[in-house]
């Protein structure tokens, strides 16, 4: 399918404009640091941050790997846990009534406040993982539940007319209907599992252990190594962006043939 030139231009703009804004912001940043002669331990120039990123790469890449591993593990556990719980709730009202309030409690209690307690009882890597999971599982649970309950009532009638079993309804009707909602939940969970991992690392870092990116930021702060703080922060941002767009891309692949959200608008 060939796209009209108008859509091509639209796509180019969607990529070009944020890049231009970024370049502009970095330019102003560099200019201010240079003109005001701000020392690097207060505000490092962009090129200093980039230089630090390269020279500190052996340390930072190790930390990146640690944080990334926690985030990905937390994300997958959250995806499985949230999705599994939602299906379980959908199948049994009793289970839903018994457990749902506790899922909400886990969600509304700030994870940064839970983390120190978890660190008392769990090994640090496990505690960090649990934090990532706690933050990330709820959006998957809530969205999947919403999706499973948003099935076309007429289709439910049709399935019952043809004598479909509970499992057939779940597998052939409720799960496909819920897919856009599940994927929406996963997109939120991806970002949140990074937040959870970082929050737990910071809590752990003050206890003097750990080696993730958030720990590096804390450590650099104590040493007034501001350029490294920026470099680590930059890596965290990039990680978040990559996770977001990766999940958005999966979302697009899964829904492009049928769901309104993934279809290109015709004009």
């Amino acid at each position: 399918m060939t796209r009209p030139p108008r859509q091509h231009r639209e796509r180019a703009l969607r990529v070009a404009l944020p890049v231009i804004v970024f370049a502009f912001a970095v330019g102003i940043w560099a200019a201010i640091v240079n003109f005001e002669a701000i020392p690097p331990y207060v505000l490092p120039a962009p090129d200093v941050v980039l230089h630090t990123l390269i020279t500190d790469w052996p340390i930072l890449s190790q930390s990146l790997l640690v944080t990334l591993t926690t985030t990905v593990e937390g994300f997958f556990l959250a995806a499985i846990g949230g999705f599994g719980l939602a299906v379980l709730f959908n199948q049994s009202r009793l289970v839903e009534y018994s457990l749902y309030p506790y899922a909400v409690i886990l969600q509304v209690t700030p994870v940064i406040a839970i983390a120190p307690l978890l660190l008392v009882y769990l090994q640090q890597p496990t505690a960090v993982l649990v934090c990532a999971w706690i933050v990330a599982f709820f959006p998957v649970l809530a969205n999947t539940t919403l999706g499973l309950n948003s099935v076309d009532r007429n289709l439910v009638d049709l399935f019952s007319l043809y004598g479909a079993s509970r499992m057939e309804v779940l597998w052939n009707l409720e799960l496909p209907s819920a897919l856009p909602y599940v994927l929406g939940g996963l997109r939120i969970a991806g970002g949140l599992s990074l937040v959870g991992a970082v929050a737990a690392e910071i809590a752990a870092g003050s206890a003097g252990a750990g080696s993730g990116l958030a720990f590096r930021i804390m450590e650099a702060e104590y040493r007034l190594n501001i350029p490294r703080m920026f470099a680590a922060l930059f890596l965290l941002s990039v990680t978040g962006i990559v996770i977001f767009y990766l999940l958005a891309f999966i979302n697009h692949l899964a829904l492009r043939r049928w769901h309104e959200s993934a279809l290109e608008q015709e004009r």
Partner: protein
Amino acid sequence: MPATAIKSNIPLVALRSVEKSFPSGTLALKGLDLDVRAGEFLSLLGPSGCGKSTALRIIAGLSEPTQGAVEWAATTGRTQGHRIGFVFQEPTLMPWTNVFNNVRLPLRLAGEPANRSGDRVHAALERVGLRNFSRAYPRELSGGMRMRVSIARALVTEPQLLLMDEPFAALDEITRFKLNDDLLAMWQMLRTTVVFVTHSVFESVYLSSRIAVMAARPGRVVSELAIGAPYPRDANFRTSADYAALCRRTSEALARAMAAGGET
């Protein structure tokens, strides 16, 4: 199935003094008596809110009457499997899968393996004129085509009873006329029984061999009209004096029903 060629005065299914009230307290149907005779094209005609759709759902078994009974002819019945097709007001297709899989759904739920249902699905699509669209997704089709898919799905099991709940109400007139003609052709070819819910006098007269006029509050059948005009019916019938006269009679019956239901 056509081998049974039951005479047209034996009820295939009958509603006996059916009453339906909803938990909200609404009394949707009361004292509803209705025979659906084998092989006929029966329309339920009435103002909105007269319980036409509720009656149809009760026949389908999607809703249980609060009182009264649904009696099936001994030779058919639910014991032999459902053999009911249902077409909703909306096409009600599964948007995540293609036309073929949508039409195959009833066979799949009946446990028929995919390699055996292919021919039947294609035959059903051929019948509604969508032979080349089996791989299309619902949203790639027009409203009329989606409704055709919905009809193909209802017919793929070759049901004894086809229940249709205002299926063409949301379509434009040109598409509706075309689908009316195609539906009549399919009904004659398949010799199935149709119960068709509508609020259009003109549509009910054009299609039906019999019309049951319903009144509201509570919903019940207040009069029945036999439409004796011979099939096949076509554009000539639609513009004939006969058709106009039948429409006038039916309109009068509907007006009386609305007066009985307390409507202005």
